[in-house]
């Protein structure tokens, strides 16, 4: 790129502008491409602190907003779902069972991805879900995790490091348990 033959014809500053614009365009497109190719956050990545606003009735210890840092030292299971998503229904009951099974030792969070509140509430009621749930406002969380669809579930260990990503619904309660047991002391 740098080997421009020096000629009087095109003023140097125009050449520089042209090359800078071209390079800028390529960098822009290239980095967007690499972002698209990356897919979701990978196991081993440390998850930056995030907050989740909760639906009323699905608060955590009275708080209507929770942060990841609130649960340091615990395994956090973050599940993305939506009421219009059929496969999500397959795993809804299992997730609730797992939440009850660990009885607070493992934190479960539900992030409702681009959904409407009435439908979301109907869904939560239908599957009798009790763990904290809230809308993914402005799709901030889903963009941070670069999810590809719903359902997707992220397992974050006691140190805040992602250690497992499940794409698609869980097939059984045991599957959820076995992933949690990997890191549960």
């Amino acid at each position: 790129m740098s080997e421009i033959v020096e000629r009087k014809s095109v003023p140097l500053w125009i050449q520089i502008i042209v090359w800078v614009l071209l390079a800028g365009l390529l960098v822009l497109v290239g980095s967007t491409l690499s972002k698209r190719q990356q897919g979701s956050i990978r196991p081993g990545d440390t998850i930056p602190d995030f907050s989740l606003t909760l639906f009323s009735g699905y608060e955590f210890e009275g708080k209507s907003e929770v942060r990841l840092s609130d649960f340091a030292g615990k395994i956090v299971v973050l599940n993305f779902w939506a009421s219009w998503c059929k496969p999500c229904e397959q795993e809804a009951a299992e997730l609730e069972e797992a939440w009850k099974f660990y009885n607070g030792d493992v934190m479960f969070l539900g992030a409702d991805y681009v959904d409407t509140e009435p439908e979301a509430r109907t869904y939560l009621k239908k599957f009798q879900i009790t763990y904290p749930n809230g809308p993914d406002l402005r799709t901030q969380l889903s963009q941070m995790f670069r999810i590809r669809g719903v359902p997707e579930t992220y397992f974050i260990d006691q140190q805040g490091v992602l250690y497992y990503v499940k794409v698609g619904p869980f097939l059984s309660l045991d599957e959820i348990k076995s992933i949690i047991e990997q890191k549960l002391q």
Partner: protein
Amino acid sequence: MLAEFGYGVLVVSFLVTVYSGVAAFFGVRKNSASLIESARRAQLLTFPLITVSSFVLIYLLVNNHFEVSFAYEVTSRSMPTYLKITAWWGGQAGSLLFWSWLLAAFTSLVTLRKWDRDIEFLPWVIVVSAITLAFFLFMIIFHENPFTRYWLVAGNVVESMFKPTVEATIFTPENGRGLNPLLRHPGMIIHPPMLYLGFVSYVIPYSFAIAALITGRTDDRWTRITRRWSLWAWLFLSFGLVLGGRWAYDVLGWGGYWGWDPVEIAAFMPWLTGTAFLHSVMIQEKRGMLKQWNMVLIILTYALVIFGTFLTRSGVLSSVHSFANSPIGPFFMGFVTLTLVVSVYLLIRRWNDLRSETEMKSMLSREALFLLNNLLFIGILVVCFWGVIYPLISELATGFKVTVGPPYYERATGPLFAGLLFLMAVAPFSAWGHSTLQTLGKAIWKSTLASFVLTIILFFTYTQNLYAIIGFFLVALAIFSTLHEFWRGTIARQKTQNENFFTALSNLMMRNRRRYGGYIIHISMALMAIGILGIELFQKETQGTVAAGEALNVGNYTVEYRELASWDVPSDDVNYTRAVLDIYENGIYLGQLYPRIDYFYDAEQTMTIPGQRSTFRDDLYILLVDWQPASNTGATFKIYVNPLVNWLWIGSLLFLLGIIFAAWPDKELEPVKVKPSAQQTSAAD
């Protein structure tokens, strides 16, 4: 066995392409005529090779070879044979093969004809197109192979070209997933190949331009040689865009023809620069000016073709049109970078050789107006490009996606399109070299007056909308001025040649096809503008749920819901739900319309087919949105009244006639020596 054969032929054609590029390069470097001839023969071999490979793929598609992954993805048992053939370009891998096939065909055409005449350019043309072709073949062979098959390995289905393990057996699914129903439309059968034809045709003018830059023969030769190529490329691209619009109108079910979708814009951008090029290249031919600018335009056009293809195929942009996320991204990115960097580098190096021979004399001369036209086209390009690129910048800078949608494009391009209409009206009256306000005014006052009268009539009878009035005035001005131009030329000829009016007109047009074909295109553009103004400014719509016997009203129309039926057609693997509607206008019964929803079982997808009634005045366009299956009494309809939209399609037809008229091959004017053998082969394919 067949799949391996097809793949093998593809690998061979890749090697041959690489050889032809390398041989041409060294042949011209070492001044070896035999090496160049060898490169040419290798190049000519690529077309039959890729044809064989394509035939193999088509055979697999037509004969339900679902063990081949591409056949599984785009065909199913219920699809008719012609659709199975067109499924060739219905998926990423196949369409890349189609693209390569076209490229090989076009390059062969160039090297077969007039080899001796253009001998100083052609080796470089071979190099440039061989690099392009090799790149596409490489992508097919290593990333998007249409011949990979499914294998059963220890109970799991694996996709692989060759037997993955010794004990693996071929796995053949019972039925394929079938082509996306949206693509099973007559318009869709020709829309993509037309676009691809247009895209690929631009490789040829680009190759010649690059050849001119490399060899330093930067006079008019390359534009003269590629004049007809760029015209045909433009024809295909325009045809593809128009067909796409019609397809969207018929199939996508939102009452429109153009949604300012990033992928649509990606195809529209090369059209903009291509159109600007068609105009400005005339200045170069007539006046020897703007050589630099023409070089910029043709390079930009090709760059936009490649860049647009890259954006939509790599998953950088996503939309209804784009192919799913694909592994070709990084490699394609490399090719785009190579193309852009080399082109810009060569352009800067040769900039000084491209100086104009003469100078502009008047701001009202035709060349000056052409430059204004170029400014407007580039302006529209800037708007479009920025609208496509900005969401990427925003996502990268702030982490959030934004939509840049129709309101932005409409507001920004509206005045520019109006400016183009105005130039269309004025330009025919300005002379090459010099014009003054006086001569221009003298020529244009009649059509201006006629347009004023017409607009005033419209104001009192049709609309008081300011934008519509301005738009209709400009449309009228463009049409009247162009017709006046035909008239003037014919009368002048009648006087001097003693011909009757029609002979004079036809001789006038036949003697200068490009100019008068161009004027036909201008008139058709103005007609299309009528349709666009109508649908953009006067579209009416309503939606409602009605029980049988109830009616919905929109404009002067009354739509009464009669009945609804839903049935399966097993041979098509489709469920049809069809409503019957009685249509009245001001209480007068007009007939029935049947909006439909088709559900395709193989693809698990629905398609909404509107009920349409078209007249020159307006289109009644009805969609079946929803129905209650249980009671079968209520159904929801969305009704559009699209005024004047038919003029868009009428204009499009005239437009095609105009381009074909302009681009139709004349008898050879220059004396050219052509080898008799080469002539024969070119006639054979």
